[in-house]
């Protein structure tokens, strides 16, 4: 952006200083708490009771964190979380992307009603719907399983996936698809030869968001599981009886994967939210 980079040059230096100190303060506001919880997670029992704390990375080691990982239930719940998130990703893309394609490429009777249904989900606290599902899930054998959690998380991620993939498919010019039809492709062939390769990065970004949505969800996962806890549900239930440094380690373990994923899709963040907030 040439216009954006041209502005600072003729900027009074005092105002420039103000802008940058504001930015620095907001960066610190985001980063320092994460740094501190990491210190807590790596500081172990002694770290928790150290007083007063300096905030410097002294006396830390990976041991306390590894100890936490080895404690009972953590690995299993970590894997359960991965499983539920995996199911969420697969289902929300498999169900949402075709709907997104239909919204992007066809005009049909009922399109507006469908969009309304999708948008309506946004006005509801969806995780709450886990409450009545307990009964039917018990009957269907889905209660206390990773599948059940994946299903309810898909309700959270699916509307998002449909709206975002609609935007992504709109971003693939219709003309390209038509050109493929003209030059010998059937509709299905054209979709896989032209649309899929071009939409792939955006679909991957959508998948990552679906993953993060599921990974972070606490309420529904806690309501629908007893023994097969996801990581969030496990941490919530053992919260009151676990020592402080275990809680910090749990927090760090929750944060790490999603931060990595958000980093991976950072380029699409704004495009996606620009689309889905329309």
């Amino acid at each position, binding site marked *: 952006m040439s216009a954006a980079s041209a502005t600072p040059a003729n900027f009074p230096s005092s105002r420039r200083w103000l802008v940058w100190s504001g930015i620095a303060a907001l960066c610190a506001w985001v980063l320092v708490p994460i740094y501190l919880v990491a210190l807590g997670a790596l500081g172990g029992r002694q770290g928790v009771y150290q007083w007063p704390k300096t905030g410097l990375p002294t006396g830390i080691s990976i041991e306390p964190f590894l100890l936490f990982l080895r404690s009972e239930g953590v690995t299993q719940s970590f894997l359960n979380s991965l499983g539920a998130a995996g199911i969420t990703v697969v289902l929300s893309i498999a169900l949402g992307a075709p709907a997104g394609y239909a919204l992007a490429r066809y005009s049909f009777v009922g399109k507006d009603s469908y969009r309304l249904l999708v948008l309506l989900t946004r006005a509801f606290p969806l995780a709450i719907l886990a409450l009545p599902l307990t009964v039917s899930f018990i009957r269907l054998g889905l209660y206390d399983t990773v599948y059940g959690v994946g299903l309810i998380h898909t309700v959270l991620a699916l509307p998002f996936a449909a709206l975002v993939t609609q935007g992504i498919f709109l971003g693939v010019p219709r003309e390209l698809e038509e050109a493929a039809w003209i*030059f010998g*492709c059937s509709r299905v062939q054209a979709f896989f030869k032209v649309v899929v390769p071009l939409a792939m990065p955006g679909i991957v970004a959508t998948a990552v968001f679906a993953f993060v949505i599921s990974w972070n969800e606490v309420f529904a996962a806690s309501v629908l599981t007893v023994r097969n806890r996801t990581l969030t549900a496990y941490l919530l239930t053992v919260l009151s009886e676990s020592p402080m440094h275990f809680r910090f380690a749990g927090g760090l373990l929750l944060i790490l994967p999603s931060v990595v994923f958000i980093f991976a899709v950072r380029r699409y963040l704004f495009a996606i939210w620009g689309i889905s907030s329309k």
Partner: protein
Amino acid sequence: MADIIIDRVQKTFAAFHALKDVSLTIGDGEFVSLLGPSGCGKTTLLRIIAGLETATAGDVRIGGKTVIGLAPKDRGLAMVFQNYAVFPHMTVYENVAFGLRMQKADDARVKAQVERTAGLLHIEEYLDRYPNRLSGGQRQRVAVARALAVEPKVLLMDEPLSNLDALLRLEMRTELKTVLQSAGTTTIYVTHDQTEAMGLSDRIAVMHYGVIEQVGTPVEVYNHPRTRFVGGFIGSPPMNFIRLPVIAGEVEAGGQKLAVPAGATGEILLGLRGEAVERVSTADGLPMHVRVAEPMGSHLLLTGSIRDQLVRIVLPASETVRGGDTIGLKLDRDRLTWLSPDSGKAYPATP
């Protein structure tokens, strides 16, 4: 044989009639332009021929066989799109080869065809590049090469030059004509640019509000527009229309007595091409009040009024006229068009 017969094709979008009963016959190897302002239905007609749009009623036959209900891929045609539609995830080579690959042509044929058409369109150097790194003009060449590589019976072009800048457009126009003349493909070319249509086509179909107003060679539609719309749309400056009273089968224009077609009474509309005049002394000719004179180098463009009606007149560059002058004009009898002021339709040419 790939003649195209468009037989009473209609298209409605909800309550909007995009095409009202359009019929057109295009001979094998002929180059026909669909010309008209945006929204006239020309692109819709092209897309119906391509199979990208379904006609509400009517028939389209290519090479004698109806193509209604056939998928685009089964119609044996190629198309060049307005925004090129060059696949960004494939190299130029793979783009040009795309149609042949879909026909499962063997590698030797693909290679030969790609090299031949790339040579025709001067894109040999870019074959292994991706389209994102090409300019608009280069992408358009790729799009044309991709269409020609499959040696289609029918080539459809949808405003292929409209996204290029003026200079490039002129260059590509000449080049297209060279390439297509030798290919001998039946071509339908959609454009809103009358100079493109005039320069390239064997025949032009002028469209307006979902109707073909006139079909004819460029010279025919230029000199003998069948409606007021055609005259006004084709030519730069557009044809002038001057309302004149008819007295005893004649109109009087600055000393000239001009016979009008039989049956015209009351008033008549004179269609006058800007260059179908000659400057004479004010006393001897039809007086024109010049408001603005624009020397264009090759000619002199005058805007002003004749009998209080706006006209644009073209005189040789050697004439000197200034804004505010009044000049006399003598009309070229053989190049006048007479139209009914009520219907806007031309009277049949007087024998």
